[in-house]
């Protein structure tokens, strides 16, 4: 089952519960994002950004990355904080990183190698590099 991803309105609600501050001026910036920060006692700065379209939801993989790299919490802690109204205790564990190719590799894999987006899911940068190298090393297709 695909894990549920919240709407950006729910992420904003979480940010209020968890004590995040909106970065001044970000709401009026030309991009479609509002930026929030939370400074931990250890001096670490957490940053996240939400879409102005609050009813929209990020895809499940994007939400996983938001949890790991921005909010730095687990999926369960996110929903528990929304239910309880209590901030998350930090430092908190984060879910394991899912392998993903780097941006420079993606156009090559899609347009030169001819893979589909589904085939790129879960591919690490090292695996992507091997596929690219093998493709470049193979003789040109005359057909």
């Amino acid at each position: 089952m695909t894990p549920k991803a919240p709407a950006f309105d729910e992420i904003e609600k979480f940010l209020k519960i968890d004590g995040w501050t909106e970065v001044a001026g970000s709401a009026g910036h030309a991009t479609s994002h509002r930026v929030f920060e939370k400074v931990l006692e250890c001096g670490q700065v957490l940053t996240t950004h939400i879409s102005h379209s609050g009813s929209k939801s990020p895809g499940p993989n994007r939400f996983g990355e938001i949890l790991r790299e921005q909010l730095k919490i687990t999926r369960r802690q996110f929903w528990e904080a929304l239910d309880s109204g209590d901030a998350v205790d930090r430092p908190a564990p984060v879910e394991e990183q899912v392998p993903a190719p780097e941006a420079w590799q993606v156009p090559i894999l899609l347009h030169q190698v001819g893979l589909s987006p589904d085939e790129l899911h879960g591919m690490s940068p090292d695996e992507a590099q091997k596929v690219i190298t093998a493709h470049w090393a193979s003789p040109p297709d005359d057909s």
Partner: protein
Amino acid sequence: MDDVLFFQTGFTEAKRHLSDLMTGVVHEHRPVQVNRHGEKEQMFLLARRELEDLLELTGQRFETRVFFDDGEVSVSLPAFSLIGAGETFDAAVEDLVDLLRQYCAQYLRRLDFYRQTDRRALLPLVFLFALTPAARQGDLLLKVPGTRG
């Protein structure tokens, strides 16, 4: 032994000869250290070209991760905690560039704050991005490792 390696000048002297000083820095590639109140306050004058070389030679690059969801592509820049998204890969990169532009602008506005946090480590990449012309900023995210900009 004189352990000062950079050419140095005092603040008042620098003001008086600013044009010559800038010519030396830019055209003769001669960085200058300007001192005020003895050496209590120091400022460095460096040509843009030297600064660009310096940043490139640090070897730091924008490390990204790409995710595909149904009808949505995300390009994540974990070091900056930024995630661009769009219906296509190109749209996601463009979104990330916009976000990065917004982030770098506020980073440079609040540098006094960030330099006291873990975000201090982002300084070379923020400068590199800010120094790159807008039309080429997206290329930084797609740069093949080990290649020159």
